[in-house]
């Protein structure tokens, strides 16, 4: 908060905190948690077919699957931001009567098994779906088994992460800045664009990263709603699943690729994941 620190500007100097070592009731389970997370990854690294890796990576099928995965996850995240942020704003800032119901709806994809989500998407947007049938008969548009379907399936399962993160940040942010903006003559849209959104930008980024990560790893909804066809709908997770049957080595290699790509991107954005909330 501005102005309350007076003329003295030294208050921005950091405190020296005592670096406490973790008490053993916390350290023990923490170590277990780390081991639990590390061991499967270690298994991947140990059993990876390092010698045949370059050849596998050169396989156009692998490159196709990776390209498709990265593209669809990014598109899904963009779509989630576009429609999810406004929804988060509605949930946080308005007093609509159906808000609790709306909030439950938003968290539904989190608890729904992904395959069930995929079936539901079919029933909505499939050729005989409640909306899909009109898309098909009026515009000749079919969505299942297309890359669009991949993006939609990934958006469906990953968007809740973004919405929940952004809604939390909006609730925590100070409404008075928006009042100040209004007093300066800014319309509500301008206020949202130039004050509200910038103040929760870190959370939007954090939510988008979570969303992207979830979308990248999506399998059940994708394979059910979008199907499996190399180049169009065969994302990396699906490619791994298929490869597992015939060539476990290839499956491991694909998993490694996905792992490395994910780690690189998530590490680049690691600060944004942890720090959420308005600009301090």
């Amino acid at each position, binding site marked *: 908060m501005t102005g309350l*620190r007076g003329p003295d500007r030294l208050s921005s100097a950091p405190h020296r905190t005592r670096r406490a070592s973790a008490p053993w009731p916390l350290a023990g389970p923490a170590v277990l948690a780390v081991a639990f997370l590390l061991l499967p990854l270690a298994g991947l690294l140990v059993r990876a077919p390092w010698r045949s890796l370059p050849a596998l990576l050169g396989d156009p099928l692998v490159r196709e699957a990776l390209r498709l995965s990265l593209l669809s996850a990014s598109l899904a995240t963009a779509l989630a931001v576009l429609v999810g942020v406004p929804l988060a704003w509605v949930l946080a800032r308005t007093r609509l009567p159906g808000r609790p119901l709306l909030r439950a709806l938003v968290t539904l994809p989190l608890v729904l098994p992904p395959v069930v989500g995929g079936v539901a998407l079919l029933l909505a947007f499939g050729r005989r779906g409640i909306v899909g049938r009109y898309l098909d008969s009026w515009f000749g548009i079919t969505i299942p088994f297309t890359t669009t379907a991949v993006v939609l399936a990934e958006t469906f399962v990953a968007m809740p992460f973004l919405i929940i993160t952004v809604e939390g940040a909006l609730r925590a942010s100070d409404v008075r800045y928006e009042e*100040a903006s*209004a007093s*300066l*003559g800014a319309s509500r849209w301008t206020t949202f664009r130039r004050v509200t959104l*910038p103040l929760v930008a870190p959370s939007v980024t954090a939510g988008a990263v979570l969303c992207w990560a979830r979308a990248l790893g999506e399998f059940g909804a994708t394979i059910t709603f979008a199907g499996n066809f190399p180049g169009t709908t065969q994302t990396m997770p699906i490619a791994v699943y298929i490869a597992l049957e015939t060539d476990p080595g290839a499956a491991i290699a694909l998993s490694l690729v996905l792992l490395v790509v994910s780690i690189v991107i998530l590490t680049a954005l690691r600060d944004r994941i942890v720090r959420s909330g308005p600009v301090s």
Partner: protein
Amino acid sequence: MTAGGAAEAALDARVLARQGGFQLDVALAAVPGEVVAVLGPNGAGKSTLLRTLAGLVRLADGRIRLGDRVLDDVPAGVHIAPEHRRIGVVFQDYLLFPHLTALDNVAYGLRARGLRRTAARQSARRWLDRVGVSDRAGSRPPQLSGGEAQRVALARALVLQPDLLLLDEPLAALDAGARLSLRTDLRRHLTSYGGPAIVVTHDAVEAMVLADRLMVLERGRIVQQGAPAEVARHPRTGYVASLVGVNLYRGIARDGHVALDGGGTLLAAEHTSGPVYVALRPSAVALHRQPPTPGSPRNTWTGTISGLEAVGDRVRVAVTGSPPVFADITPAAAAELGLAATDQVWMTVKASELVVYPITPDQGSAAADQGVPP
């Protein structure tokens, strides 16, 4: 000398609003160039009043008019949103946008109006210069000192040449040193601002310095208004009396003799009659250890010391009696007399020291108690 461009619109407000428990019921008017201070204790409804004028709080009833524009009219169902009111607000915590530089903060309103960035920044820079923080234009609010932030907030509001300026405790967040110098600056800017300005504060000195007219707000109602000096000279409520630091009594006067409501009689020099207030400065009260020998002061009575307190460079002695009174004496005198609680003392006051003024009927409704609250 007006800041050119501000429309010369007068404020005429009749505000009825509900504020957590009590009702705000205020008639407020201000002409262009006038600075009205709304003074009151915390919880009196000052901020709510300001927020209704700003359009951030809906009226329960009433009307707010600025010049020939109607901002609020409850019976007619009119409510203009804050962004269309063309008012400027300086908030208590300044509320400078933390993600924008000081320059962009000031330019914000101009850009919201559609001005191009360069032109907006130019105007913003001029105003930052005017308030004296042009060297901090590129800094972000967290890097500004309290005084600098206050000035940026003022510039941000004034750059838009609003029709009405509202200031919510503009100096409250500052330490004493900064407050002193900024008060003078603020007075200067308010003088050069052409429209009406409403300053809300709980600081009596601030109100006295900044205001052309003072309105005292207590529990949602205006209990006294007038020129600052007049209000200070003739307080009408215990709160104002305590702010100004005088003893205040109510009573019935008959030809100079005032029978006080709480007991006791005082002789005043003026020959007023009827229901009156009597104001007595603590420094005009003399204390004696013994019953004083007859002398010129016409008022003498006795009481028991209930407390002593250091106030500035004086000692304020609280005495119960008929009437109770606060007396200011020097520390040396207090020491010499060896005053302590439960001691009996005698007070003498010259009749000419009493300020007696009639209680006007419509001003008597607010809680006007006797004496000076601790």
